[in-house]
């Protein structure tokens, strides 16, 4: 039976991320959206469970599937939404818009590769820094089952293992890489089976169970911090909606209705979190999200001059 404080904390964040996901969905249906939004609804258990196992000063490279990673790591909703809606309040000061590249070095949120798979080498590099500067920071690298096919994983994983770098790879296996089912991407049953090639532990965990993901990640982080090297965690989850909001998914065979979430991480957490507490957290989450949305949509867009800024340090 999990430590109740933790379960409650995870619930708070999962509920908050869920509320943003639903609010964004609603906004896009009503008003459309500049650029692409890759909904992460249903995958909050992985994102929150893993990110909360990190220390504030640990590093995080997130994936494109939603925003749970950054929220759970501690970024302000307004900073994230500001990037999504191209407002000066965004963490990138208005350069964002659509698919987000939110960032907050003060809490280790370092970005995501627009080209999938960049996270692997970048993450290993951040781990080298941590070691060189004598800190005990750990780097968490999120990626999908599809991104796992990139050669950058192989190059980074071999070197990170040989050097015992403090990296934790967290694969969100949601069964699909855009229109490609996992069966066409992986010759083995689990992505985690690949850990053998790199001489690192490979762990398969239920991605719908935030507590299980948290525990598996915490263990990997502890090992990495202690100098034990990387771990490959595969969290099994499911892509509930289209690749991007609006994707008609005609290619999809296991079509979900986009609403119902099998083994919803919320339901699983509610088994350990008292209903009244959970209900109240739901209300707070919705309120927080409404407030952040209003603030964001009211915020100004960056003026044209911004396009010339920040090329050079």
């Amino acid at each position, binding site marked *: 039976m999990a430590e109740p404080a933790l379960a409650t904390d995870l619930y708070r964040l999962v509920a908050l991320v869920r509320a943003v996901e639903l609010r964004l969905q609603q906004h896009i249906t009503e008003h459309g959206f500049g650029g692409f939004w890759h909904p992460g609804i249903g995958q909050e258990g992985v994102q929150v469970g893993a990110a909360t196992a990190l220390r504030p000063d640990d590093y995080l490279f997130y994936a494109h599937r939603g925003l749970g990673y950054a929220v759970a790591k501690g970024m302000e909703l307004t900073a994230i939404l500001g990037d999504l809606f191209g407002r000066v309040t965004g963490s990138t000061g208005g350069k964002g818009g659509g698919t987000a590249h939110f960032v907050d070095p003060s809490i280790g949120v370092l970005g995501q590769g627009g080209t999938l798979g960049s996270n692997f080498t970048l993450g290993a590099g951040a781990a080298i820094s941590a070691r060189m500067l004598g800190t005990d920071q750990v780097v968490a690298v999120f990626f999908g089952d599809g991104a796992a096919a990139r050669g950058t994983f192989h190059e980074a994983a071999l070197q990170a293992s040989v050097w015992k770098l403090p990296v934790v790879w967290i694969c969100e296996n949601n069964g699909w890489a*855009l229109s490609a089912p996992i069966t066409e991407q992986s010759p083995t049953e689990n992505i985690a089976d690949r850990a053998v090639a790199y001489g690192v532990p490979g762990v398969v965990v239920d991605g719908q169970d935030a507590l299980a993901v948290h525990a598996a990640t915490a263990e990997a982080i502890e090992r990495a911090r202690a100098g034990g090297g990387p771990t490959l965690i595969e969290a099994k989850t499911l892509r509930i909606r289209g690749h991007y909001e609006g994707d008609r998914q005609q290619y999809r065979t296991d079509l979900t209705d986009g609403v119902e979430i099998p083994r919803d991480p919320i339901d699983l957490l509610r088994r350990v979190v008292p209903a009244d507490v959970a209900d109240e957290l739901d209300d707070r989450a919705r309120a927080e999200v409404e407030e952040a949305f209003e603030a964001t949509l009211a915020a100004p867009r960056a003026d044209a001059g*911004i396009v010339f800024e920040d090329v050079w340090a």
Partner: protein
Amino acid sequence: MSAPTRAEQDAATEVIGYAWAINHALAEEMRRDDRVWMMGQDVGRMGGVFGVTRGLLDEFGSDRVRDTTINETFIVGGAAGAAMTGTIPVVELQFADFLLIAGDEIFHKLAKWRYVHGGNLTLPVVVRLPTGVLGGAGAEHSASLEAMAMHTPGLKVALPATPSDAKGLLKAAIRDPNPVLFFEHKGLYRTKGPVPVSDEHVVPFGQAAVRRTGDALTIVATGLMVGRSLEAAERLAADGIEAEVIDPRTLVPLDMDTIVASVERTARALVVHEAVRTAGAGAEIAAQIQERAFFSLDAPVWRLGAIDTPLPQDPELEQLCIPSAAEIEAAARELVRI
């Protein structure tokens, strides 16, 4: 009523979109030659992220229309190996920017392996590259990289600006025994225009198209900038400034003769592309114009291109980084005054 003659057939056109014209070229060439096949991410079951390859999996099957995983080095390197061994791969990278992920395979293998091996290998590969700015795809999904290919001997480079050229140039690319980088502009996929229905509509490489004639100046534009330049030209015409607009259509080979002949008449040249201005294809074209037409020029050759920054993610901001019709018009007005 008698059946249409071959000539009538060849002359016949239909108004379709740029993406659909590409789709037709692919289907026709795959029907014509069963050594032609495709691979890329989501090109089969989904019909491509931009819908360009819709229906091809159903018609040609999963052997000839292959959905790959996320492995750009495999997509291009695999195509190179397949081309060396008797088939004709037409592969898609989901965004032109990704050619830098397969940089070794494109710039070292496709471009050089015939030469390195003394002509013993042939690499008939077409790499389809959805290119350019559209809807805030961001810095790693919006770049125009054709100049890098132009700087690499061994690669042919096409940039269709119309549905008709999209079909005709792609068919020429597929029939070409050399590797071709085929830059399809994402912002043009939905533009419609007349396209010859004939499956022998092949637009030869190395022949520029004069999109508009004029005597005040010569505007050389590629891809998305062809339309914007024509727009600018119409506004200029309102004030009696007649611009000649030339679309090279392919950068390798490059039809400089048509460009130089035009500049010798107009005495002024403005080169426009969406790619970053610095060290872009426009630099080469401008340099060659002044090399070959120096004494005909009344003014320096000017260039317009993207500003010296990466592209911002925001759909509105990104447009501020590339030449607009208004900027082309303004530059032309200033240039003719020199």
